[in-house]
């Protein structure tokens, strides 16, 4: 609002200056006129005195001349007064000079014949003639002449009277002159100087006034322009602006303020807040105004106001005092800045951040967020758990504090490298990838928690505000150490699987290749045996037959094992009554049981139904029974029982045979395990229990052996799913 004050001030200034100029001009003019007047009066007085003196002088001259004679005539070229010759007779002029000073001359005609006027050589200027206005007045007009004249370069006040003869004809002139320089000259000079000064002054003054007038006009125009500009400027500002005097009365406002209050500027000017708003609000405004006026300077405060259109807005009042030239506070200027939108935006941003933090908080990956100054503003639960550092100990911290749990020192993390070039990143990270603004990196850290080795997978991305300015960043860190280890294990398993497949192919191939050469043996041994009468040779052939049969059995078992190593598909599973499966297996083994004089009791409850691949279940029981038969004593009894526990059935095959060393309880299920290493029982290839184990595992069951000790019998137990069990096999 300084501009407006300025405008007012210049207005006042302008008028004051005009007034002062006019006054001084008038004063100077009056003084000069008065001085001139006084001088003139004085001069006139002096001149009158001189004239009186001159007249007296002339009169005395006449009287002196009259004493000589009153009859003037020219005789023989000589002027006579009565009989008194004038020519060359200087008695009278000298007498006049003696009495009055000055000069005196008697002219005969126009020729000086008696004078005390001296010429340049210092001699009496006799013989010189009268010229100029005096001559004209006397000789042409026949009048006396009074006036100023220069005699021999000296100004004189002069008086010329004509001398007439008896007939009235002008025959000469009587002259007296008083030297002006004596008394009037300084006065005259003064008058001249004064006049000149006055003239100069008037001229200069006029010039000054003209110039000043122009300058002021220009200034006035400039002021006017500035005033208009400022008014436009004020009105263009969308924020309400007002100014008040020291008494809190409105001095003016802009258009925005008019809109805010709902009244025009003209109506506003001169009003107090109490005339515009309710008492409570007006009191508050007045209070604020007064406090500002008491402590001049700047006052800023937030408030909310209701506009004339009845909208409630959040605003900031910016008020400042303004003072006049002597420094005293004249009033205040205020700007009301509408911050409703800004507040709303701030609120939105705040909400957005809160939402972000809420999301971040529950992210499963360890995550933290930093602001643009790299200070931690969010630190989620997962990272609290990972690092053992709680939110309250890190939020608000900068200076790479977030790197400490990982590296044990303040150093940049991925989040600090967001603006780096990819090439530079590659130098720092072996495995790093950039997608848009986001960085992905795999990092091996040997300093985690002061010395643990961990493998982390980190991703960092910058955050931007609504205008697209950088606002910080977010980094997620996942501990992939166990994943890495699992991956290593997986790789190992894959290579093992590959190896196993190779072995499987080899087994199949080997089985095939063994079967072909066995075929002639099987075809021919019986023929050979029939043709041999010698019992010793027969025995030899029998041994060969048995060996060939043993090889065939081995091949069968090995191929069975290979086949069993394939995963069971769900559609292969069937619901089988356990008791009948056992029954069939017993029927198949009846010969060998009879040979070994072993009895078997099927004690399985008829209600139990299991889910199994029929061939495999049959094979399982065949192997278990054959195994039990082999180790049973003569007249031994094998018992097969089953117990259902919710979804699983535990089957037990018990014999009262030779029992097992506790050390062998586990190893009996290994391929080619034999309790007695030195014993090569051709009938027992040592694959029976490993086939059993394979089948049970294929059905997601468990198989184990129990034995109180050597000679006390053995129980092989396995679990298998009950028919309703909902277990997937083909995963």
């Amino acid at each position, binding site marked *: 609002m300084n501009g407006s004050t300025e405008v007012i001030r210049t207005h006042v200034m302008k008028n004051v200056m005009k007034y002062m100029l006019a006054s001084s001009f008038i004063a100077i003019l009056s003084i000069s006129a008065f001085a001139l007047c006084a001088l003139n009066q004085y001069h006139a007085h002096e001149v009158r005195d001189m004239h009186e003196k001159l007249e007296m002088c002339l009169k005395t001259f006449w009287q002196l001349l009259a004493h000589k004679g009153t009859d003037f005539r020219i005789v023989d070229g000589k002027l006579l007064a009565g009989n008194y010759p004038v020519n060359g007779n200087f008695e009278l002029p000298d007498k006049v000079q003696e009495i009055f000073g000055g000069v005196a001359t008697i002219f005969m005609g126009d020729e000086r014949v008696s004078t005390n006027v001296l010429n340049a050589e210092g001699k009496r200027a006799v013989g010189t003639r009268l010229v100029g206005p005096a001559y004209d007045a006397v000789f042409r007009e026949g009048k006396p002449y009074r006036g100023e004249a220069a005699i021999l370069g000296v100004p004189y006040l002069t008086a010329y009277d004509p001398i007439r003869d008896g007939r009235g004809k002008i025959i000469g002139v009587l002259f007296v002159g008083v030297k002006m320089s004596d008394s009037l000259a300084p006065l005259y000079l003064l008058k001249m100087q004064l006049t000149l000064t006055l003239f100069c002054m008037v001229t200069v003054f006029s010039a000054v006034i003209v110039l000043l007038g122009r300058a002021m006009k220009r200034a006035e125009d400039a002021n006017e322009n500035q005033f208009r500009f400022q008014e436009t400027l004020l009105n263009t500002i969308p924020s309400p602006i007002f100014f008040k005097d020291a008494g809190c009365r409105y001095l003016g406002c802009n258009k925005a303020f008019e809109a805010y209050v709902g009244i025009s500027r003209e109506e506003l000017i001169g009003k107090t807040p109490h005339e515009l708003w309710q008492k409570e609000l007006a009191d508050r405004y007045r209070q604020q105004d007064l406090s500002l006026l008491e402590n001049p300077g700047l006052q800023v405060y937030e408030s909310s106001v209701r506009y004339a259109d009845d909208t409630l807005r959040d605003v900031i009042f910016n008020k400042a005092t303004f003072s006049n030239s002597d420094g005293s506070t004249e009033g205040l200027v205020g700007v009301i800045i509408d911050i409703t939108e800004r507040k709303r935006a701030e609120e939105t941003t705040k909400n957005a951040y809160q939402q972000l933090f809420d999301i971040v908080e529950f992210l499963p990956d360890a995550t933290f967020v930093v602001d643009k100054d790299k200070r931690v503003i969010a630190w989620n639960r997962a990272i609290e758990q990972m690092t053992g550092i709680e939110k309250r100990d890190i939020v608000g911290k900068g200076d790479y504090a977030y790197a400490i749990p990982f590296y044990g020192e303040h150093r940049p993390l991925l989040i600090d490298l967001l603006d780096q070039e990819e090439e530079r990143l590659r130098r720092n990270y072996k495995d790093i990838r950039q997608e848009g603004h986001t960085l992905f990196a795999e990092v091996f850290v040997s300093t985690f928690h002061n010395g643990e080795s961990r493998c982390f997978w980190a991703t960092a991305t910058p955050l931007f505000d609504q205008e697209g300015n950088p606002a910080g960043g977010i980094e997620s860190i996942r501990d992939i150490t166990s994943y890495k280890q699992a991956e290593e294990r997986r790789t190992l398993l894959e290579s093992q699987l590959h190896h196993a497949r190779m072995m499987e192919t080899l087994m199949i191939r080997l*089985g095939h290749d063994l079967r072909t050469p066995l075929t002639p043996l099987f075809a021919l041994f019986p*023929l050979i045996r029939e043709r041999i009468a010698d019992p010793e040779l027969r025995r030899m052939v029998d041994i060969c037959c048995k060996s060939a049969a043993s090889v065939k059995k081995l091949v069968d078992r090995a191929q069975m094992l290979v086949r069993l190593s394939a995963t069971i598909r769900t559609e292969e599973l069937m619901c089988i009554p356990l008791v009948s499966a056992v029954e069939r297996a017993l029927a198949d083994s009846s010969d060998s049981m009879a040979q070994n004089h072993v009895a078997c009791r099927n004690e399985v409850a008829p209600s139990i139904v299991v889910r199994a691949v029929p061939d495999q279940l049959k094979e399982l029981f065949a192997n278990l029974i054959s195994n039990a038969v082999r180790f049973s004593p003569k007249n031994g009894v094998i018992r097969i029982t089953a117990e259902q526990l919710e979804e699983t059935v535990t089957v037990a095959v018990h014999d009262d045979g030779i029992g097992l060393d506790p050390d062998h309880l586990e190893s009996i299920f290994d391929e080619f395990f034999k309790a007695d290493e030195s014993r090569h029982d051709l009938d027992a290839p040592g694959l029976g229990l490993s086939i059993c184990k394979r089948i049970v595992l294929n059905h997601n069951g468990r198989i184990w052996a129990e034995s109180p000790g050597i000679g006390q019998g053995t129980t092989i137990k396995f679990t298998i799913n009950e028919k309703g069990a909902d277990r997937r096999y083909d995963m």
Partner: protein
Amino acid sequence: MMDPKVMLVDDEELIRESVEMFFQSVEIGILTAASGEECLGHLKEGFRGIILMDVMMPDMNGWDTIRRIVENDLYDGNIIVMLTALDAPDNKMEGIQEYVTDYLTKPFDPDALMELLQYYSGLLNAIEADDGQ
């Protein structure tokens, strides 16, 4: 008992020879073929009976041979028993299972073979008798 007519198709000479010797010992006539082509040749010459067919043979395997038999309308009047060293059926038999009546896993027990031959020979005779009516 009717004399069963048997043809053994196997690329392995030792097998052909030993099986032939076994059949001679039980006085049953047997025709051997070292390849699918030879088998087809015998069929074209009029052989009808039980064909013991090895699966794995070079050039034309057992399955291909069966396809060719069917394509040449030589199947009727025969029973095919596959001789296999692998104990599981493989996927190469896709579409021709119906022409395979049984499987015999190598090495086969001569008594079991005889039992099987007699069973299928009886079956064949019964079919022939039906056709003859």
